[in-house]
Structure formats: structure tokens, C-alpha cells
């Protein structure tokens, strides 16, 4: 194993058991189903955040109790921001700048969706833009999935990218309510992510039987 491969290995191991995809996918799928049936309470932000906190705990428990006894326990190191404050101003190194931009974009994108969807704000957009919202979300997600597929060299994310594009196309040509179309599209994608994670998790458990001391 090369040195750089060894440094990258903990992050790869964190992703290769499929636990994160499975739990997040299932959670988002259930939230989508609740949203579609209008059972999700609107206007209470903590109720939107709470499932993510619960999912975080579920991921940790699965990693500790199911994955660790089979393949060991590892937590990848988080990127550290390198910000230096001097008399000439604040200096941020290039890797940290990139990280800040990506994080900021993801936060704005997610918050945007969390505000737009439960508050039914899409219908206020001008007519021809309503159909484009689904396409815009689908293309962003497809781009993100394709990037993960390329980074992790895994075909299942390429399939998810293709699914996102197909659903985006469907949302554009469909004559239904644009908000419901977007919700249905996101729910289907969340289900796809959850399913991909579950398949991954199952094959990981089969390949790594529990080691008895």
C-alpha cells in the first residue's frame, strides 16, 4: 500500500460499509413520504433537524456495534481549517478556501430546500420557472452523484446520477403540481440512495463475518 493510499484509507473505509447512505437515504425517504402526504408539521424548524440528529446516533451505533466487531473501528480525520490572522489581514489556505466554498454552497442549497418545500414557496415563482426548479435540483444532484462516482470509483453512484437526470426530465415534462413533482423526485432519489446503501451494507456483512475472540 502506498503512503497516500494509506492516508486516504480511513475515509474509504468509513464509506465502504454503506451505513451512512442506508440510514440517510431511509430517513430522507420517510421525510419525503411524510411531506407528500402533508403529515410533516410545517414551521417548526427543530422538527426538520431532529431526524438528522437521530440518524447521526443510529449511524454511530451501527458503526460501533455491527461494523467494528467485523472490520475494526475507524473515524476519519476531519479537514482542519488553516486560518492565520496577522497584521496584514486574514489568510486562508487554498484547501480551506475550497472547503469553505463547498460547505457554504451545500448549506445554502439544503437550507433553501428546507425553506422552500415545507412553506410551499414554489408556486410564487413565475410560471415557466416552476417547471425548471425540478430540473435544476435534478442536475445539481446528478452532478454531485457523478462526482462521488468518479471519486470513489463506484458505479452505483453513476446509476443514481442517471436516475436523478431521468427524474428531472420527468419533472419537467409532467403537467402536475411542480412542488409535488420535486418532492416525489427527491423521495425516489432518497429511496435509491437508501437502497444502494442497504445492498452495500449487506454485501459488507457477508464479506466480513464477525470475529469471535
Amino acid at each position: 500500500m502506498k503512503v497516500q493510499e494509506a492516508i486516504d484509507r480511513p475515509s474509504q473505509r468509513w464509506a465502504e460499509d454503506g451505513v451512512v447512505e442506508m440510514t440517510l437515504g431511509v430517513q430522507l425517504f420517510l421525510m419525503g413520504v411524510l411531506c407528500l402526504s402533508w403529515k410533516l408539521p410545517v414551521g417548526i424548524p427543530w422538527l426538520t433537524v431532529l431526524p438528522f440528529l437521530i440518524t447521526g446516533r443510529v449511524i454511530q451505533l451501527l458503526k460501533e456495534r455491527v461494523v467494528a466487531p467485523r472490520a475494526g473501528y475507524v473515524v476519519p480525520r476531519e479537514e482542519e481549517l488553516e486560518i492565520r490572522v496577522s497584521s496584514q489581514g486574514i489568510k486562508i489556505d487554498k484547501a480551506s478556501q475550497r472547503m469553505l466554498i463547498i460547505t457554504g454552497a451545500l448549506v445554502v442549497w439544503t437550507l433553501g430546500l428546507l425553506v422552500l418545500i415545507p412553506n410551499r414557496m414554489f408556486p410564487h415563482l413565475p410560471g415557466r420557472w416552476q417547471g425548471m426548479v425540478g430540473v435544476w435540483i435534478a442536475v445539481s444532484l446528478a452532478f454531485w452523484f457523478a462526482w462521488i462516482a468518479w471519486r470513489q470509483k463506484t458505479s452505483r453512484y453513476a446509476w443514481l446520477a442517471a436516475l436523478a437526470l431521468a427524474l428531472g426530465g420527468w419533472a419537467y415534462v409532467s403537467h402536475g403540481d411542480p412542488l409535488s413533482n420535486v418532492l416525489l423526485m427527491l423521495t425516489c432519489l432518497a429511496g435509491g440512495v437508501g437502497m444502494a446503501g442497504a445492498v452495500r451494507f449487506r454485501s459488507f456483512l457477508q464479506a466480513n463475518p464477525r470475529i469471535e475472540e
Partner: protein
Amino acid sequence: MSEVDRIIHEPARLLIVALLAGAKEADFLFLQRETKLTKGNLSSHLIKLEEAEYIEIEKTFRGKIPLTLVRLTSRGREAFQGYRKTMNGLLR
């Protein structure tokens, strides 16, 4: 010419330190699987790294199962970065 860090220079220890450089913490089983070393061999390398204060070892329990957690110290991280720099310089 800069001196090569002999503690990290040994291939098995270099692999252990590189694995820990990408991790916040890892347990003994993860390191054993990735390095493919025997328990005894891995233990002796970990002891050497701990003596040099490059890693810290925490023995704990998760439920009733014993768990040995290993982390790279800031000194170990600096030593690893220094080692990479030295080796890059020597091979250039």
C-alpha cells in the same frame, strides 16, 4: 542532508502512522486488518511508536468488549510530515 526519522522509516511503522494520519482514531482490529501484521508484531510496533510519543493508546470497553483505540499525537503528526518532506527532498 536531513536525518531520516528511523522510527517512522521502518515500513510497517510507516504504514501504521500513514493510516493514523488519515484517521481521528482507529482500533487495533482496523490496524491489524489494514497492515496484515500479526497481533504480536503490531503490538510491538505500537509500543515503539508510543514510547516515541508519536501515538497514544487508550484501552477502553464498548459494552463488555475490550477496545484498544489508537491516535496519532501532534508530535507524531509533525514527525510524519517532516519524514515525508525529508524523503521527498532526498529523492528529488
